[in-house]
């Protein structure tokens, strides 16, 4: 292809065209820097987001099914408070799932149902939901979130007293174990609990004992109840805002506390529901839609709200903000790239002016307008690809030495450049495929676009007038 060989010849810097060479070099340097920056930033942020999501979906799940207001207002839910068979206590979803009776009410032994009571449903929303999930073959588990005062006696002396969220242990989470920082099974009658890793930094050790305290109302007063606990280990709660106060406990503890106290989360996080796990997080939305469809078919969709991890109340804002930051960065990078491409336009226009005679000579040999335009378009693409190559190589080098760079940055600032609680102990260093694809497509396209104006200018040169003026 003669157009490419001519384009490559034109791009080689020459002494007599120093200004062209300088602009060419500057353009390539600027585009390379943008490519490098985009690749490193997107790779690191994509890695951070992946880590966050991995922790989030390990502790919770990619898909969460939570009861709607319709559920709590239903006969099915409320009837337990009138039934002796249910100890006149509303049941959690887990308890409902294993109860033998969908309707525990007995006309003979229980008090009369008030007139304003909701109408009895013909379907068991929990058992139907469980059946749908079983049919879909997905691992799932009910969860409860409760609140209690955690009192811990530290081994070395001192007491820690902290209001805490209690989350039932997501035993069926395939990746929950990856969150465990340190643990040791205990031979004790006390309830084993897992604490967020910040407790370890506060001097709490495995085996430390204490109690979970909560208030249980009685007929005439409120009594403090204490559940003896022992620290079994520590886990990494990730970036969840309540993470540092979230204690993992066996599910019977949360059920017990829920039976006496209804827990409400200030951010609207459901305190009871079903976690559903899937192997591929990218399919979460697809599975969410599938579950919703099956619930509709089963006639229980009005009882349930199906969310993916991107909609979780406690992480949604952070994820959105993170996404906005990335979009903003990409916008800035695109503007810088455009400026660099303007440089490419200037360079190629200079080149066209410089090579007018050669263009005319090529035309005299039969080169068509298209071929002449292609030469300068190829000049633009070649510069874009070369910049991609340089920027990509720099990005790979940077990512493979990112820990060293972070250490230098931290040393310069005198403190951690990236907070380990937020970003993890090390920054992700895997080159993002999406970022690479973005750069590999966007840069040559922009460079080609930058080459179009000079290409059109070159193809409009009239060979006769140029050759005559020589």
């Amino acid at each position, binding site marked *: 292809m*003669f157009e490419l060989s001519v384009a490559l010849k034109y791009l080689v810097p020459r002494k007599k065209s120093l200004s062209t060479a300088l602009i060419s070099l500057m353009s390539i340097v600027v585009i390379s820097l943008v490519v490098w920056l985009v690749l490193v930033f997107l790779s690191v942020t994509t890695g951070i987001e992946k880590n966050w999501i991995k922790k989030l979906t390990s502790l919770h799940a990619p898909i969460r099914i939570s009861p709607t207001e319709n559920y709590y207002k239903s006969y099915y839910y409320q009837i337990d408070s009138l039934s002796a068979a249910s100890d006149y206590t509303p049941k959690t979803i887990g308890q409902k799932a294993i109860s033998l009776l969908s309707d525990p009410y007995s006309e003979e032994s229980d008090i009369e149902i008030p007139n304003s009571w909701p109408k009895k449903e013909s379907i068991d929303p929990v058992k139907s939901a469980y059946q749908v999930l079983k049919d879909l073959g997905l691992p799932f588990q009910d969860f409860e979130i409760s609140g209690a005062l955690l009192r811990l006696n530290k081994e070395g002396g001192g007491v820690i007293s902290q209001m805490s969220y209690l989350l039932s242990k997501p035993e069926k989470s395939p990746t929950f174990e990856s969150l465990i920082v340190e643990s040791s099974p205990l031979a004790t009658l006390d309830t084993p609990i897992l604490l967020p890793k910040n407790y370890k930094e506060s001097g709490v050790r495995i085996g430390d004992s204490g109690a979970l305290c909560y208030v249980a109302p009685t007929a005439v007063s409120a009594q403090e109840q204490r559940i003896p606990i022992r620290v079994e280990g520590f886990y990494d709660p990730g970036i969840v805002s309540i993470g540092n106060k979230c204690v993992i406990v066996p599910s019977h503890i949360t059920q017990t506390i829920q039976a006496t106290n209804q827990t409400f989360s200030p951010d609207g996080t459901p305190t009871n529901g079903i976690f559903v796990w899937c192997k591929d997080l990218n399919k979460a939305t697809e599975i969410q839609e599938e579950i919703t469809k099956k619930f509709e078919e089963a006639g229980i969709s009005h009882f349930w709200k199906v969310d993916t991890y991107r909609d979780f109340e406690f992480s949604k804002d952070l994820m959105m903000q993170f996404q906005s930051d990335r979009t903003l960065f990409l916008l800035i990078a695109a503007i810088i790239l455009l400026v660099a491409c303007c440089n490419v336009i200037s360079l190629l226009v200079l080149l066209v002016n410089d090579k007018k005679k050669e263009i005319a*000579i090529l*035309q*005299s*040999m*039969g*080169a068509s307008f298209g071929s002449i335009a292609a030469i300068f378009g190829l000049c633009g693409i070649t510069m874009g690809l070369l910049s991609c190559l340089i920027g990509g190589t720099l990005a790979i080098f940077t990512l493979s030495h990112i820990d060293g760079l972070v250490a230098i940055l931290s040393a310069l600032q005198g403190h951690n450049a990236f907070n380990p609680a937020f970003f993890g102990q090390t920054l992700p260093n895997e080159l993002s495929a999406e970022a690479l694809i973005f750069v590999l497509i966007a840069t040559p396209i922009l460079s080609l676009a930058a080459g179009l104006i000079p290409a059109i200018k070159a193809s409009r040169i009239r060979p*006769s007038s140029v050759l*005559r003026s*020589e």
Partner: protein
Amino acid sequence: MILTAKNICKTYPKVELLKNISLSVENGESIAICGRSGEGKTTLLHILGTLEQPDSGQIEIGGKSLTRSNAATIRNKEIGFIFQSYNLLEDFTTLENVLMPARIAREPAEREKGLELLRLVGLEDRADFPAKLLSGGERQRVAIARALCNNPHLILADEPTGNLDRANAQKIGELLLSLNKTFILVTHDAELASLCDKQYTLQDGVLS
């Protein structure tokens, strides 16, 4: 007939340069066009070589009527140009210059073919020389080899000896005439013109 031009007219602002010029060139014929500077010899040559559009008139080259869409192809396949100022591509080697028309035509640009053309003009040993390092006479010989690359039916030469000393001009003239090609030559060199089959003079826009 290799070339037929009918009623070619070209007017520049306030100057009617070519007035209804008609010309036919037969296969193997050599034609010299002489005339004073500014009479429009080069313009006529460029029009015949499809580098410039006439205001009116028709041109047929190799039996094909010239249009905007086939001009580049005809220029590449049917015509070879030789210019006064050689017009080599200075960033390329001698051989690359010679083979460029074949590469533009997307035909195999074999080194052997290029060397053969360079042998014809006596520059085989300069094949890998950068074109910018050649002397004036050598450059013109390379330009001749390049003009022959696609084995065109017609060679158009614009003052091919104009920039050369007497000895080199003679060599180039002899070389051109030894090619046995159809060519149209624009020249001030009366001696070179006299060696052509036909001589025309362009004066006041008329070819006589």
